[in-house]
């Protein structure tokens, strides 16, 4: 599986995600944000960081980069697109995913492990997990509070497009398990076509036993298997 990782000025987790992709058996290549063309890709990744300093709004400037129209075109053609943290923010700003990410309800930057429940295995990103499986992955963000209007939330649920929810270690969806106030504990969502995933947590930072766990590896393995 060949992944293209888009790098914006201020992106800082491109190497983290490239390493995770390699650990899962894939290959990763970096592309700078002002390229208008993209090489052939089995997966396009928008990594974590502070693209354009998070100026104006997180992901706002990045969403208007030269490379984005091509990312949107590829998404339309069915290429998997993965947006992690800042990448999720960029995806909502481009309209590839609905809703928006607001300031954490606690108002502070938060970096710690959380638990996620896999809400759907019907996607190239999650098919290697089991339905309802509980994962431990870290979050590291200041603006991860997912918001969408009631109609959108209803649609996401009806169409089985909520990919991950924050939960406790036993898989229960509780307020205490929600690190940032996201509506319905939503941590990650899919587009209608199920080839675009945006998520706030960082699976790439828990893909190696040395990092303290490997629950994040499943997402990247899913993709490698889907493409193969």
């Amino acid at each position, binding site marked *: 599986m060949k992944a293209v990782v888009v790098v914006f000025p201020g992106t800082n*987790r491109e190497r983290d995600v490239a390493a995770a992709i390699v650990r899962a058996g894939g290959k990763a290549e970096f592309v700078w944000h002002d390229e208008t063309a993209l090489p052939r890709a089995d997966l396009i990744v928008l990594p974590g960081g502070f693209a354009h300093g998070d100026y104006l709004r997180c992901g706002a400037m990045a969403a208007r980069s030269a490379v984005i129209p091509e990312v949107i075109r590829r998404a339309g053609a069915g290429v998997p697109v993965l947006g992690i943290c800042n990448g999720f923010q960029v995806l909502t700003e481009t309209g590839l995913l609905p809703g928006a990410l607001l300031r954490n309800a606690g108002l502070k930057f938060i970096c710690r492990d959380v638990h996620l429940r896999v809400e759907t295995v019907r996607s190239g990103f999650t098919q290697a997990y089991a339905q309802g499986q509980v994962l431990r992955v870290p979050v590291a963000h200041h603006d991860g509070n997912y918001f969408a209007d009631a109609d959108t939330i209803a649609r996401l649920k009806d169409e089985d497009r909520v990919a991950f929810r924050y939960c406790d270690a036993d898989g229960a969806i509780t307020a205490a398990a929600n690190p940032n106030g996201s509506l319905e504990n939503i941590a990650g969502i899919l587009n209608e076509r199920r080839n675009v995933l945006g998520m706030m947590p960082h699976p790439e930072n828990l893909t190696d036993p*040395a*990092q303290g766990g490997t629950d994040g590896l499943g997402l990247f393995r899913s993709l490698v298997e889907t493409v193969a």
Partner: protein
Amino acid sequence: MAVEHGLKPEEYEKILSLIGRVPTLTELGIFSAMWNEHCSYKSSKIHLKTLPTKGPQVICGPGENAGVVDIGDGLAVVFKMESHNHPSFIEPYQGAATGVGGILRDVFTMGARPIAALNALRFGAPDHPRTRHLVAGVVEGIGGYGNAFGVPTVGGEVNFHPRYNGNILVNAMAVGIAPADRIFYSAASGVGNPIVYLGSKTGRDGIHGASMASQEFDDATEEKRPTVQVGDPFSEKLLLEACLELMATDAVIAIQDMGAAGLTCSAVEMGAKGNLGVRLDLEHVPCRETGMTPYEMMLSESQERMLMVLRPGREEVAEAIFRKYGLDFAVVGHTTDDKRFRICMNGAEYADLPIKELGDEAPEYDRPWTAPAAPAPLGEVAPVRDLGETLLTLIGSPDLCSRRWVWEQYDHLVQGNTLVRPGGDAAVVRIEGTRKALGVTCDVTPRYVEADPRIGGAQAVAETFRNLCAVGAKPLAITDNLNFGNPERPEIMGQFVAAIRGIGEACSALDTPVVSGNVSLYNETQGRAILPTPAIGAVGLIADCDRIATVPFKAAGAAIVLIGA
């Protein structure tokens, strides 16, 4: 006016005799920046010289922007700790943020990519009216800068004590990795070589910041604030990538970041170290304010800027790299062979000073000091009746309780190489491309130093040593950030001298030389000094990242062993 610039009468007399005339305003500003404590180390140099700085693992000791230690596999670790105490008291968010920015630049100006950051914080009593505001601002500022820049902030310490009520301490440490044979130094070389300005534009930020750092606070402190440095971590991240890209070419002869006293300090130091003169033509300095005077340009502390001596003919290559990242690039002067520091603008000359006496031949003092008195005996400690209750009281106290609230505001995972997270004795960060990892920690117990500065200084080194051993790292070297009160008071100077002695003795005994450091003096308010606080930052090497030890007990039924009496 000399007094307003923080110069003592004797120092002003020295200027007059040195240049044989009354200095221009710009020259006065330059002297005040270069000869204040923060830049010249005039009160501390003579004692710092006694510290052990050598060892087979040391590639570069004190004197450069950061220390450089060989870790094998063709790599070197580059690290240093630096203070930003006074600005953080006045504007906690930006003070702390720009402190982080400054130390990161000190590391990447040597060619090292930062892989870990730590911070040692000292605040006043928890119930002091300013403490909450300062803690919140400082922690948010450190996180705000480090997280956006993309370096994991993995360790540090936080203490509370009434002696810091009027003077908080914010010491920031950065650790980076560089190829051992591609370290970049700051001494200029080659006559007639272009001197290049890199990074963000110059504004009126922080003019007089270096002088402020060397003055005590008094009731008029609230008025000392008009110009505070404001940091932009996004620009710094771009500056990092641009510098590393440039350093991969052969264009860089010498490079230095612009920190305290910005353009003045960096240009003087680069020239003085290289035994060369410097001529700057300020009309080329990129400014973001209109009508800036030479005085303002020389003293501005605008952030995210570097100064470089460029190999002639490489201007285009270098400029293209900086334009790609949206940063400024301007040839602002050249090196000369006359050891003069000349500042011109639009053909008019504003300063012409001897460069060595501004830089490495600035005044040095041997301030009088009195040996610290022996500590009073502790006396009887009442026996404890309820151990359980006492335990809870202790671990709930401000100096012992969990610091989770602090380090969960820091991204300690970015770069994906954090093997041991904050919460233990030391953090561990993997070195990409090798089986190795680094243990990093910082520590000091100020009340020990207050009781007996020599033993307290030694204990600080010993504690960092043990912290590293506890994770399985072999301690390699230390950096020291010495925070003390007013050195013009013999009893404070006595603490300083004794602490350095203790640190030196411990470093020698433990084979951990001092490779870098920082001194912050005048941490006093209305004559009451902080606890003497020589913060020690230490780095150790783990040969195989599979052999790391951590704090949590692993299984029921295992034996617990106490080592040592």
